[in-house]
């Protein structure tokens, strides 16, 4: 399977590069005072350079994208991610269409983080139809296979999302969503010999390796279900307000490792939509200010419990309770699009409170970036 992904990806990358229609280049600069998102705040800066190429032929488009990120204070966490894929859109009639995409992806981390290296294959099938001019029904199915250097993380997942929205003359949109997901860990009982020596750790603080497989673990799959809703209101042509909420349950299973954590910008395989249950609510205000600058301000509150993950004290001793986090997040973002390039500036503040003291943290996150597009071929 891994070899097949490599062959297909290599084909798509070379092929797309030779015949590109669109080429875009982007550069982002990110700064934070808490790159590992834990109580021992550690500053870092991350520079990220990405390129994107695509080529349409007939109803199929090929695309490929590469992203290199360098961390100044933690260069061993720098990484390169590349993906290549194709997509196809099929209209059934004027009101209904299907969309399919297949993407091969590889992530390569430097030195200490080679455990995070992976090859993956994604498939997405989407369906959308207008039930009436003001009501939309949508459904997505996503399949993902990921094979990591550290096999404890290997998985196959399926996710199905269905949503319905309707628009009223009061300029109000109401949307309801249902989601189901299933994640099957391929090697949840990886032997502990595969793990990097205890005590080496990826970062300061609790002195134990964090991704140990659990000693007692039954069943290989995690199954989740969620319901969500959104109310959006237009206030004049330049202001939009939206309120949304979602509640997620773990129907069965739990993570096979002993700890779950997120890193800033860098993907951490221990944390994803399957690792928690709880709720999330957010509000967002979008304003188009003078010079056509798009300004977004948002607040998100979440309460999450991580089934199977036990909180520990700062010495690494189990506290006998399941880890629970409460998070408040404020966001401000400004973006300006020019005909050939776009620039943005964003700031986040996060306050995460947890019954695991290691994950009691606050963080400030700044990002700024520039994206430049070049086009080749016909205007079509």
């Amino acid at each position, binding site marked *: 399977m891994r*070899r097949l992904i490599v*062959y297909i990806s290599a*084909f798509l990358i070379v092929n797309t590069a030779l015949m590109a*229609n*669109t080429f875009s280049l*982007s550069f*982002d600069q990110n700064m934070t005072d808490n790159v590992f998102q834990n109580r021992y705040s550690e500053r870092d800066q991350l520079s990220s350079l990405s390129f994107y190429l*695509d*080529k*349409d*032929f*007939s109803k199929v*488009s090929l695309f490929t994208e590469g*992203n290199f990120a360098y961390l100044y204070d933690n260069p061993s966490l720098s990484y390169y*991610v590349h993906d290549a*894929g194709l*997509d*196809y*859109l099929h*209209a059934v*009639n*004027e*009101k209904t*269409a299907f*969309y399919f*995409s297949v993407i091969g992806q590889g992530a390569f981390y430097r030195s200490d983080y080679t455990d995070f290296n992976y090859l993956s294959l*994604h498939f997405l099938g*989407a369906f*959308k139809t207008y039930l009436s*001019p*003001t*009501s*939309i029904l949508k459904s997505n199915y996503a399949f993902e296979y990921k094979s990591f250097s550290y096999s404890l993380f290997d998985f196959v997942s399926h996710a199905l999302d269905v949503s319905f929205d309707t628009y009223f003359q009061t*300029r109000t*949109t109401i949307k309801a969503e249902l989601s189901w997901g299933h994640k099957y860990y391929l090697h949840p009982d990886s032997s502990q010999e595969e793990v990097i020596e205890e005590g080496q750790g990826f970062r300061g603080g609790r002195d134990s390796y964090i991704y140990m497989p659990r000693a007692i673990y039954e069943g290989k799959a995690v199954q989740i279900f969620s319901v969500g809703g959104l109310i*959006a209101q*237009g206030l004049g042509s*330049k202001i939009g307000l939206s309120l949304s909420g979602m509640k997620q349950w773990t129907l069965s299973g739990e993570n096979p490792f002993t700890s779950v954590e997120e890193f*800033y*910008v860098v*993907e951490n395989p221990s944390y994803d939509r399957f690792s928690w249950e709880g709720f999330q609510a957010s509000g967002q205000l*979008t304003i*188009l200010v003078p010079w*056509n600058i*798009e300004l977004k301000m948002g607040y*998100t509150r979440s309460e999450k419990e991580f089934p199977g993950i036990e909180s520990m004290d700062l010495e690494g001793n189990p506290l006998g309770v399941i880890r629970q986090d409460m998070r408040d*997040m404020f966001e401000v973002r400004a973006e300006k*699009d020019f*005909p*050939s390039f776009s620039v943005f500036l*964003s700031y986040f503040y*996060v306050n995460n409170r947890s019954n695991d003291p290691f994950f009691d943290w606050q963080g400030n*996150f700044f*990002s*700024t970036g520039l*994206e430049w*597009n070049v*086009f080749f071929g016909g*205007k*079509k």
Partner: protein
Amino acid sequence: MRKSRYVILILSLLIVQAAALGQETDHYYNVDTEKKVRGTILQIVMEPRYKDRSPFLIVILEEKKTKEMFNVEISPVRFFSQDFHKGEEMEVVGSIYSKDGQKNIIARQIRFRGEIFMLRDKHGFPAWRGGEMKLKKKRKGKRF
């Protein structure tokens, strides 16, 4: 044995691609006919616009001032990434052309719900991308 299977797979992909090359288009973006139109969405449809290309999302817009109707050509993939409804307001900047007695706009920029979407560059080259629906990565800074 396994290697030869991969070779066959890649050859098949190349054949399919070669067969699909050499497409021609019907009409082009003309910067000299650019116009800004602000109006209300009356209808949303998917329909073929260019030979052997994916069908386009077309928004039928009624201009506020003149009550004139325009068929606004958005892009193929926006059908999935953007939810337009009848009755919503939209402002479009694009190239106008007439066909079969109907006024059409090839949209370059749309302003919708307080957001601006650039669909083409200033010369009219498409700015949408394949894989629009792919799982979004951490582009343009992290979104928590």
